[in-house]
């Protein structure tokens, strides 16, 4: 076993949750790294879809945006954005959607819209993008976010995309048939909704992380499952694959930078 960073652990833990049969709606950042690590390790036939319209992409370097040329060049095919949202996302063909956000609450609702009142925001965030419909139309949702007090908050100022709403059977009450967030992968631990209350609960702690470290980084009194396991440390292969793709990505973006200068 090698040394690894919390972010590497987060990405690799997310990658492990994916399988060959998954059709993933990939966001930028950690999700993109996780999905491609899965593809380059245990799930070579996983289908990756980016909301820009590229279906079945196999990027050699990670994109900076969801519409980089690399995604189209390596895709099986590319559709228009209306088709992406109508036939593929709303069509119910995505098994797993990845989301992140500026803020999350204990029921895995996310905010990427504003901090403060909507009309007079203290901080104007980018907004929802695809998130509101990714959250409702994908079979299940994985969320990756670093565990911090600023991000994991008692109460969201704005619900950009629904997770488990007020908890319990709130999703079913709204007519949703999809599972919603089934896993939140952080840099310190993995959370899953309690089967009944749907409150996020620690189910796995990354190697070397202590309970009070987790509790101290969460904005609400975080619960631990009855049985909490230790997340298996990254394997040599996982780390090599992740670091390789990150290195290729860095090099590619720097090269493009020089050329553009």
């Amino acid at each position, binding site marked *: 076993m090698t040394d690894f960073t919390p972010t590497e652990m987060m990405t690799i833990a997310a990658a492990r949750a994916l399988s060959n049969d998954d059709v993933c709606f990939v966001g930028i950042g950690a999700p993109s790294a996780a999905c491609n690590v899965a593809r380059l390790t245990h799930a070579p036939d996983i289908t990756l879809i980016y909301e820009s319209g590229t279906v079945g992409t196999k990027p050699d370097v990670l994109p900076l945006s969801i519409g980089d040329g690399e995604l*189209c060049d390596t895709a099986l095919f590319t559709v228009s954005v209306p088709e992406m949202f109508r036939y593929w996302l709303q069509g119910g063909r995505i098994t797993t959607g990845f989301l992140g956000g500026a803020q999350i609450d204990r029921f895995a609702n996310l905010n990427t819209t504003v901090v403060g009142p909507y009309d007079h925001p203290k901080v104007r965030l980018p907004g929802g993008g695809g998130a*509101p419909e990714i959250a409702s139309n994908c079979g299940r949702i994985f969320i990756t976010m670093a565990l911090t007090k600023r991000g994991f908050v008692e109460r969201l100022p704005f619900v950009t995309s629904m997770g488990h709403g007020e908890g319990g059977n*709130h999703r079913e009450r709204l007519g949703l048939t999809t599972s919603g967030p089934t896993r939140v992968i952080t840099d310190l631990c993995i959370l899953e909704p309690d089967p009944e209350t749907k409150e996020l609960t620690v189910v796995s702690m990354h190697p070397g992380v202590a309970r009070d470290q987790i509790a101290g980084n969460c904005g609400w009194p975080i619960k631990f499952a009855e049985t909490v396991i230790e997340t298996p440390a990254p394997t040599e292969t996982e780390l090599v694959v992740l670091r390789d793709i990150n290195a290729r990505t860095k090099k590619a973006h720097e090269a493009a930078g020089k050329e553009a200068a």
Partner: protein
Amino acid sequence: MARIMSLAEAVEENVRDGDTVAMEGFTHLIPYAAGHEVIRQGRKDLFLVRMTPDILYDQLIGVGAARGMKFSWGGNPGVGSLHRFRDAVENQWPRQLEIEEHSHAAMANAYEAGAANLPFAAFRGYIGADLPKVNLNIRSVTCPFTGEVLAAVPAIRPDVTIIHAQRADRNGNVLIEGIVGVQKEAVLAARRSIVTVEEIVDELSPPSPNSVVLPGWAVTAVAHVPGGAFPSYAHGYYPRSNAFYIRWDEIARDRETFTAWIRENVLAAKPEDFARHAAKTAAKVA
């Protein structure tokens, strides 16, 4: 029938103060050169429409050309905030910006409805989300067969849509390839349209009978502006300048550096200046 003309003429004839303007391109083929021409010609009170108002709309907002904006994701992709957009919303600088905020699915469906000449789009959306509480243009319709309640948004019908594409022929037929985004819908939804292209060719020669083509009779103006999508990219011509997107964060963070950048790179520049971005890569490829 599309007229082939200079970008300056195309903007002069087709973009008017107060217009609802959509400049589209989903990461790919963003019409930067045309947007800069709009700034240079001093258009004002524009209502901007765009799914992903990235750097280009940050520039239009920062110079005060916009009275409002309809959008679904306002960030610098993979980098962070749009500082000029934030400054306008948070501090009303340089002027107040009315916003109408949607999800991507809503915007994509609304463009599609506009292209299809429908008054609204219905989709399964916004469930459990807060946007319907702050946006009166998110309503609902009930399926007359199942009773299911769906989200509804008004069709987008811009006064003018501006896009960039790979090439046009001399009749103004336009070919778009790669990540085609919502550009076709945005053009068909609009009253007028301007398309800037990398090349004007004798034969359009689409690679497939099902390639994405806009016929000349559905386009108002075509302008030859090689490199016109930089720092975005043109599939088959030049790559995205991820480095410039990263650099924009520095430029736009501060009102002064932003204004200086606009003065030097937009107000004192010309559409032809974009050609070097295409030429550089072409030279490298050759």
